């Protein structure tokens, strides 16, 4: 008999079942107060009066505003937006790539073994984690106000605000992508004495490149839509235009900008597809 195995499951009951049941009950218990706090009431959606108001409002979106001077405004804003988003993401990558590589457990040499918990490696990792948390945890508006003091109103502050907040988010997501994939190839390289970067390039990148690219392109798309930050610092661009038109309830302008947004999102989708095909 196999003496190494101390547990034997002779019953026909799934040993995980009690935990799962507990989990489900606990989840439901948590859900109830949430629903109360959020005043959750889907029936409101069906209220005829609401539907009428809603419909009246939607009508204002037609037709889109196609006046030439407005379109010109939109066009320059689009170009500006694309440039700012690209620059912002490029800088964000500069922040995110090293941080992401540092904190990813799958590339951690000191965790092979189980874990000898090298104090230096551990503290660097904690530091990086904390830095990341601060970068993305402090709201954009605070970064924006801070940068305005240094650079004044305009695109530089906007681009940097994007770079900082997105850098923190990208780093987190990158590290999690690296941990979620198949980590065995990277581990094998670390075991053969390879360094962290070597293990990343040879062990993780082939499997994760597509996912990393997908997410980066998505983030770029977010930067295109980043109305909030850009507006705060007067960096202009589509997002700010949208904010303004919406607050003024100018339906025609809103729908024109929406169409441009949709176009850009489709473009991002295509770029993502293209890059992922290249990485196939």
């Amino acid at each position: 008999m196999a003496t190494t195995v101390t547990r034997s499951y002779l019953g026909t009951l799934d040993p995980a079942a009690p935990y799962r049941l507990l989990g489900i009950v606990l989840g439901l218990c948590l859900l109830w107060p949430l629903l109360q706090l959020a005043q959750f009431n889907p029936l409101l959606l069906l209220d005829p009066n609401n539907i009428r108001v809603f419909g009246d409002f939607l009508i204002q979106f037609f037709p889109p505003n196609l006046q030439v001077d407005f379109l010109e405004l939109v066009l320059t804003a689009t170009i500006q937006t694309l440039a700012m988003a690209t620059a912002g993401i490029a800088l964000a990558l500069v922040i995110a790539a090293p941080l992401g590589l540092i904190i990813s457990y799958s590339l951690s040499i000191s965790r092979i073994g189980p874990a000898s918990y090298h104090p230096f490696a551990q503290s660097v990792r904690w530091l990086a984690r904390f830095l990341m948390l601060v970068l993305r945890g402090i709201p954009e508006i605070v970064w924006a106000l801070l940068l305005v003091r240094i650079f004044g109103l305009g695109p530089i502050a906007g681009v940097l605000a994007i770079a900082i907040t997105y850098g923190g988010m990208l780093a987190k997501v990158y590290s999690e992508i690296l941990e979620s994939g198949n980590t065995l190839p990277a581990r094998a390289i670390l075991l053969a004495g390879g360094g962290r970067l070597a293990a990343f390039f040879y062990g993780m990148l082939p499997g994760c490149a597509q996912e990393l690219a997908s997410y980066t392109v998505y983030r770029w798309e977010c930067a295109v839509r980043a109305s909030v930050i850009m507006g705060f610092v007067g960096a202009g661009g589509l997002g700010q235009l949208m904010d303004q038109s919406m607050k003024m309830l100018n339906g025609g302008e809103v729908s024109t900008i929406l169409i441009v947004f949709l176009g850009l999102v489709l473009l991002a989708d295509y770029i993502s597809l293209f890059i992922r095909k290249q990485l196939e």
Partner: protein
Amino acid sequence: MKIQANSEAIKTVIHSIGTEPARLYCIRCLITLGLILGLTVLSFMYLSLNPAALFTSEALSSLFGFVGRFFPPDLSDDFLRKIGAGFLETIAISALATLTAAVLSIGLALPVAGRFGLPAKVVARFMCNFLRSVPELVWAVLMVLAVGLGPFAGTLALTLHTTGVLGRLFGETLENYPPAASNALTLSGAGPIDAFLYATFPGIAPQLLSYSLYRWEMNIRMATILGFVGAGGLGQMLFYELSLLREPKASTVIIAMLLLVFLVDAISNRLRRIQMHNLG
């Protein structure tokens, strides 16, 4: 004779691959890389960015002056009580919105990844693109009109936008994941949903979880729209205090938000560790 035939076959194979495949392969990825780099440089040039301004002494002193005004945080009882309420409301709205969106997105991910054929893919993708190209603010206005001011409108607005985001991210994750395991099930007659649940989901679950939790963090910070719909929440409080230039109060809110983000990060780590490889 057979050996000869064999080496013939080998030769044709080598031929079909090309004489210098090592170079051939990478020209494509180099071109892509070059294109991306070029566009990035162009963006910087268009914006004429010069981040060097960051390091002038004047900039630094004004930076410290700004940061200094946030200390000490306002910890008066009255304000802390308000923060407490905002904390709960924020958690409720963001958690509920994220949860609903995540569930919907898992449903959307299959068609988005093309598991139900091309027409379904096109429709689902367009839906995701549309949902997320409409900014949160616009959804907020629409939802206010549909269900009235209050946290529920905020929840709905966040849900709609988040569904668009997660639907795309989940879908692409699904596409990027190696199909071997799910193909194996399809080959034994399982349907696309079965194959997803039993073969792909365990593999991508950490990634999906990571995306959902990251999105939760984002939703916690969605300041503008929550204020817009008349639902307090931390984001709105921060915006309010900053507008009134009351930095000590703002800094208390920031600390509360950081705590919340820290909490989410810790939960995320915990949940993911449970799922990960048990290799150490």
